[in-house]
């Protein structure tokens, strides 16, 4: 491996862990603050919705349709694996028939 590749991996590893460590410290500081601690209780739900939004932001109509199907399956089943299976079947079938 070249020196540049080693440097890339080293700095990326250091940076990635620093971000996580900063998250750990800030989580502790926020939880110690009475007014801000509620922020941490609401954060996970908002973060996961934002992750879904980011994966759909540039997606085509087929992916949005599959997401809508997965949403309905999730509402009914409230089960991760069942929703994954139906989501995969939906996008596979939609791509097969419409592309």
């Amino acid at each position: 491996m070249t020196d540049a590749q080693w440097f890339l991996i080293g700095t990326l590893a250091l940076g990635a862990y620093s971000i996580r460590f900063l998250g750990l410290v800030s989580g502790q500081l926020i939880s110690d603050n009475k007014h801000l601690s509620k922020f941490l209780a609401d954060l996970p739900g908002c973060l996961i919705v934002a992750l879904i939004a980011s994966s759909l932001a540039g997606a085509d109509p087929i992916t949005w349709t599959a997401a809508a199907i997965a949403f309905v399956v999730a509402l009914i089943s409230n089960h991760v694996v069942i929703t994954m299976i139906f989501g995969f079947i939906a996008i596979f079938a939609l791509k097969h028939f419409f592309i």
Partner: protein
Amino acid sequence: MKQGFLSILPLAAGAAAYGFAFGVIAAQLDFPWWGIAIMSASVHAGSSQIVAVEQFASEGFVIGAVLAGLALNMRYLGIIASLNSVLKEVPLFQRLFAIHITSDENWALTFAKRAKDPSIGAPFLIGSGLTMFVTWIISTTGGALLGQSIPNLVDYGLGFAFTAAFIAMARAMWRNKQDTLPWVITFVVTILLIKLSLGSAFAIIAGSIAGVITTGLTQQISKKAAA
């Protein structure tokens, strides 16, 4: 911990497809298989690794590639901060290890399970994190070693399985109708910011903060209305 190991397996299968694809790309860009293994173990940030390696190959500048990769990883500020309630009772060395092996998938699954069963905590997070961590290392290294002899499952729509899983996890984390407006705000703000060309990592953080602020505002309005 065993429950965490097993519960995450369907998601680990999806991550393996991504890991394999990354390994293929990285090997084509002259990274040796053992270098990819070291990178996956030490960095452990899927999308950041992909972006950094691609930037490095196309631009040739290490600092630019690292910054691009780290920008995508900024969401872990919020993800790890939110783990405070899960990790506060465990020893420091376990906390420092847990934050390294935490991924989007096992973090979200931990909170989804915890919403149904409050006894779910650090052992589940660490067990599921270890599964994802090992899967990522093996799949990326496997991709580098086996190259293109196996079809890219991501092209068949396997990547969407993650989105579907996150939708199901959000459903499990939905507490009551008071979550609806903040979540809609989060969704719309995140999409708008990405459409306005803000990096997705920053859009995720900004969208989440907009949602949390909305929660605070709606609760204050409800309290005033009740008083």
